[in-house]
């Protein structure tokens, strides 16, 4: 789109020509995911996860639409329609349901890898700030959708998860409780809450699909980033998306779908919680209320605040949890380093991997019963999370000396050939000889 050497669409078949003249949709597709989109030639496999996220969004929408045909959004019928009707009597209902359940987990797995790819390679930096921010909007919508979807089977964790999460709002003074009641349509999760969650759970994926289109549109203005972080300079630096990246994405998607199939068919309940196979019971609180695994790091941040410092601990927790995601919107301005890729930022790189470990520890801290040890670990790792983004990152970007960047993408790609062609001796001698030859 943005590169002058991008190939324009030339319809081969008369029918395509006919369509293209009236509605240039084939042209748009060709320019977006076809031969008309030049992509840096040096992308590594971390760049495959955006396409994968799109694949899982599609899987979720397709399986979800069919599941919705057999689901009863009533407190009496929900559990039985999922565990009785869909899992037993609907043709391949068990497959749809398990594919949807684990599809959500895989959607989050690939999205998390995609986000961390962006963090490492500075994908949030100019000129891709809006790409990054639209991505975060997608992520927030995903979280809302996943939460409401988890409520729909109306098991114990569904009910008590809804209770805890809508309880966030009651942490805010004065307005909190009325907002909570308004959102739930009652004093506790019940018929009204379940029906509206179902309605929104059906709506939001299509909103996500819409924002995905904006995300890709915004991406295609500057074009994809690349592992060196160096801008594309000429045609030598790029390859057309099709067939090069369709082929690369294709085989890799098959490999990830293989992992997804193994979980879905052979360990479908591994990532879930057994308590959600107990029907919701407002009178019996489960021994521990834990959200789905993809919310564990945020759950750890939420419950790490245990001391009423000026504000109530619960309000601190809720504020911190929302901030932990909102702060990512400011990343393009927090990290001032002009170097995009973490590969050329020795100090940043170390802190990046520390952050990855920190988030994994946060997940562990949020995923189990709150013992004193788990709480302490959660508090330390939650503190590090905020320090990393809001204190360490700006300081590193101010004081770090980055490594020299390659002159161009093709320079870095063909580094191997160049090294082979160079003489074995030390560099200065080579220049000397070269000059001598010229003279």
């Amino acid at each position, binding site marked *: 789109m943005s590169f002058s050497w991008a190939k324009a669409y030339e319809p081969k078949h008369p029918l395509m020509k006919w369509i293209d003249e009236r509605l240039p949709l084939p042209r748009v597709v060709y320019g977006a995911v076809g031969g008309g989109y030049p992509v840096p030639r040096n992308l590594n496999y971390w760049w495959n996860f955006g396409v994968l996220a799109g694949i899982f969004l599609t899987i979720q929408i397709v399986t979800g639409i069919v599941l919705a045909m057999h689901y009863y959004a009533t407190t009496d019928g929900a559990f*039985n329609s999922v*565990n009785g009707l869909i*899992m*037993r009597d609907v043709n391949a209902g*068990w*497959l749809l349901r398990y594919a949807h359940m684990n599809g959500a987990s895989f959607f989050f797995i690939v999205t998390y890898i995609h986000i961390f790819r962006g963090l490492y390679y500075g994908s949030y930096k100019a000129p891709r700030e809006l790409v990054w921010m639209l991505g975060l909007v997608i992520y927030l919508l995903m979280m809302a959708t996943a939460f409401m979807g988890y409520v729909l089977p109306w098991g114990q964790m569904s009910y008590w998860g809804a209770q805890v999460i809508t309880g966030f709002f009651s942490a805010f003074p004065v307005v909190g409780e009325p907002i909570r009641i308004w959102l739930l349509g009652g004093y506790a999760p019940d018929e009204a809450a379940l029906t509206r969650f179902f309605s929104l759970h059906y709506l939001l994926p299509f909103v996500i699909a819409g924002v995905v289109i904006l995300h890709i549109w915004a991406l295609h203005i500057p074009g994809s980033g690349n592992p060196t972080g160096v801008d594309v300079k000429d045609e*030598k630096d790029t*390859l057309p998306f099709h*067939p*090069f990246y369709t*082929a*690369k994405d*294709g*085989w890799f998607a*098959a*490999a990830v*779908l*293989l992992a997804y*199939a*193994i979980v*879905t*068919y*052979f360990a479908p309940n591994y990532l879930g919680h*057994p*308590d959600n*196979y*107990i*029907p919701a019971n407002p009178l019996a609180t489960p021994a521990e209320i834990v959200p789905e695994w993809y919310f564990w790091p945020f759950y750890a941040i939420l419950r*790490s*605040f*245990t*001391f009423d*410092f000026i504000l109530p*601990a619960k309000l601190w927790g809720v504020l*911190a949890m929302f*901030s932990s995601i909102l*702060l990512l919107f*400011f990343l393009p*301005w*927090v990290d*001032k380093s002009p170097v995009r890729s973490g590969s050329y930022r020795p100090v940043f790189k170390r802190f990046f991997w520390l952050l990855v470990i920190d988030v994994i520890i946060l997940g562990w801290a949020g995923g189990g019963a709150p013992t*004193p040890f788990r709480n*302490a670990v959660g*508090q330390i790792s939650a*503190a*590090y999370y*905020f*320090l990393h983004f*809001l*204190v360490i990152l*700006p300081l590193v970007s101010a004081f770090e000396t980055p490594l020299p960047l390659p002159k161009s993408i*093709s320079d870095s*790609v*063909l580094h191997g*050939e*160049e090294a082979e*062609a*160079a*003489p074995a001796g030390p560099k200065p001698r080579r220049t000397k*000889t070269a000059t001598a030859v010229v003279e």
Partner: protein
Amino acid sequence: MRFILGFIGAVFAGVLLISLITGLATYFKSPPAPLAAEEFHKPPKPLHLASDGPFGKFDKRQLQRGFQVYSEVCSACHSLELVSFRDLRELGYTEAEVKKIASDWKTQVPSINPDTGEPATRKAIPSDRFPPPFANEIAAGAANNNAHPPDLSLITKAREGGAAYVHSLLTGYQKQPAELLKKFPGSKTPPNLHYNPYFANLNIAMPPPLTTDGQVQYEDGTKPTVDQMATDIAAFLVWTAEPNLEARHAAGVAVVIFLLFGTVLGFLAYKQIWYDAKRVVRVTGPLEPENQAKSRRAKAKAGVAG
């Protein structure tokens, strides 16, 4: 702006630090008292069933034995609300047998008297789900010291440990260890409860359901030891929770083979498509004499002209 954000980050970290310090202080000042349940609770004993693993299939004779244990023992208190009589066909019963099992079932299905419109009951038919032993939760509680026997349809999915948990729980009843009472004198099992180290809080309301060998007379000649009956009912409850397990495993094997094939094929296509793109010759200027010789040798070896 970076200053403000840095300040916010420092505040959150600071409040977390205060939370950490106060938390640790409370912990060391008054460490939480150890609980008997933490120390004496046991993870389930390993249990191997025919349905385990990616190629697992149900042992239908075992499921029939498990169903017999359910109908003669468990069904006195536990419902099986998600399972229909017609589902028993999958265990190898004939249509006539299923009809008989349904009409002979100890509780009848609520219905309406066709003449008077009064509430009535009728015999179950294969399309009915198993009628629950109690009319409602209050009736169930009243008959069981206020403990509500859970529905068993999904029990192996609703408990950590699944079938192994069911088997361990049923065979795990024992006298409260003297060691426990010595360490936690206040933790004596209350009357009407029963000590079982596989139950989360050690004291379960359900009295031991399988007490003596031969409690159920198996028709296929299997020796009905307590352990055998517990294993069979666990296997049966895996089926009630996951009746499509065999279809899932079979489809899974096919899908995995298909995707493996697709992955390999896709990878080869990728290698083919990228073959030239990965071998772009870059002009680096004339080589030095020693490297010219090297290059000539390499080209000769590879059979490339030039």
